[in-house]
């Protein structure tokens, strides 16, 4: 076994730099304003070639979740969760929920991006439950 590692291709490098700086950024299309994930050479919505890296708001909500009961990586000991999060900017991303777990259902819960140290990537974005709005 080994640790999990990022699969970093040409367009991923600026994203992982932004994550190491704890300001996760994605490309926003200069033509149609759509965000894209994973990073890539053109906009899947309008095929525009021009894009700008924009830091994320850090807001999102849980779309789905699983719990691993089998070990695949040295640095992930089961049981551990993985969540799919729809970012406020639109794209779905995969992460882990850290801190308190939701009581009742997970799906639909608001989460906020946070950062943890990571042996392979330096830093890695995770999510935690957002504070409930003041009553």
């Amino acid at each position, binding site marked *: 076994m080994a640790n*999990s590692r990022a*699969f970093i291709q040409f367009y991923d490098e600026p994203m992982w730099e932004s994550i190491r700086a704890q300001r996760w950024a994605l490309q926003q299309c200069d033509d149609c304003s759509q965000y894209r*994930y994973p990073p890539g050479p053109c906009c*899947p919505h309008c095929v525009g070639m021009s894009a700008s890296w924009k830091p994320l708001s850090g807001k999102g909500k849980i779309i789905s979740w699983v719990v691993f009961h*089998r070990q*695949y990586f040295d640095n*992930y000991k089961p*049981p551990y969760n993985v969540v799919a999060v729809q970012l406020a900017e639109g794209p*779905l991303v995969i992460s*882990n929920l850290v801190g308190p777990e939701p009581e009742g259902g997970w799906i639909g819960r608001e989460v906020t991006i946070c950062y943890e140290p990571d042996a392979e990537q330096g830093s890695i974005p995770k999510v935690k439950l957002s504070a409930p709005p003041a009553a």
Partner: protein
Amino acid sequence: MTTGNLAKVGAVIGVGQSDYVSDHARVRAGEKPHDSYGYAAIAFRAALADAGLTRNDIDGLIVGPTVAYERVGEVLGINPRWGSQADAMLAVIEACAAIKAGLAETVALIYGNDQRSAAVQYGGPEAMGGNLFLSYVYHAPWGYTSQGALYAMMFRRFMEVTGITEAELGEVAVAQRLAASLTPHALMRKPITLQDYLDSRYICEPLHLFDYCLINDGGVALIVTSAERAKRIAKKPPVLIHGVGRFDLNRGATSLEPRLLDFYRPAQEACASQVFNMSGLGPEDMDAVQIYDSFSCHVPFALEGYGYCRSGEAGRFMREDGISLKGKLPVNTAGGHLSETYMQGWNHQVEAVRQVRGECGARQVEDCRFVHYNSDVAGKAVSIIYGR
């Protein structure tokens, strides 16, 4: 929708496979009976014998990954006038297209895989397939790996949206194990109960051990020829390909959007429209269904996506109407990937052909006229209807 017309162009006149049971026992005992090419050769010889043909009758060749096109042709001494490399379902469609176009008349479709004895990894640091499907490797930094985990995430949301339960999903594993118990060449023949299923350990929750396919070595081959030639030369009743369909969802594939937000439904609906229009048939005409089941949850997704039940009702359909050989709609009648053999869709084509021929013995579906095969691997929906 314009579909062109491949209806009744091609017919399957021969099927063959390696000895799954014996080879699996040997592999588990530490032996390596064959490599992928050996399994492919065994299956090809069996398919030729089944068709009553010789190697020299073959003028088209389609080879399924993981074996390489040229090497299979070299090993088997086939110099075809037309050739291709494709997975099981696309191989059948391409064979029909080549026959229709006059590029070939009798096409051998050949597959071999030594995935078990070669210790192919479907998750973890050495996970296969990342060169073809980025989602298989892209989320590893978060510990998210293995195709099973992708389907677990999809099924968790499906539970939330439709109310389907783990026990209802368990109907798939139980029904397919019953089918396998009546299938001499199936690997897992001991029947299980719903309680056995619920008691089995989670691999990636909400999916249990019994929701995962087997991993074993083997080979499969089919011989497809023109419907016209099939009538003249076939040793056994030819099985006609009445319709085919395909629709792919690629946008958002790595971030899992079509998987998690739509359960691949738009691809299945477009594919259903093609295959049913082409064949002039509908779900109500199908006597059995073969569904690509790397994981059990493919079954409820397909039942809804192809119109076998209403949206959101797959759980109730499986529990009340039934998908076993005793149920309203027999699904994966030899046990499928979960209990028969994991030949990546190839074994489903063989079972469809045998059911239409009526040669399935204890697991035979009575008066089986039409069998629908469908798959939605990574959002690539493919359908084929086999029939008399």
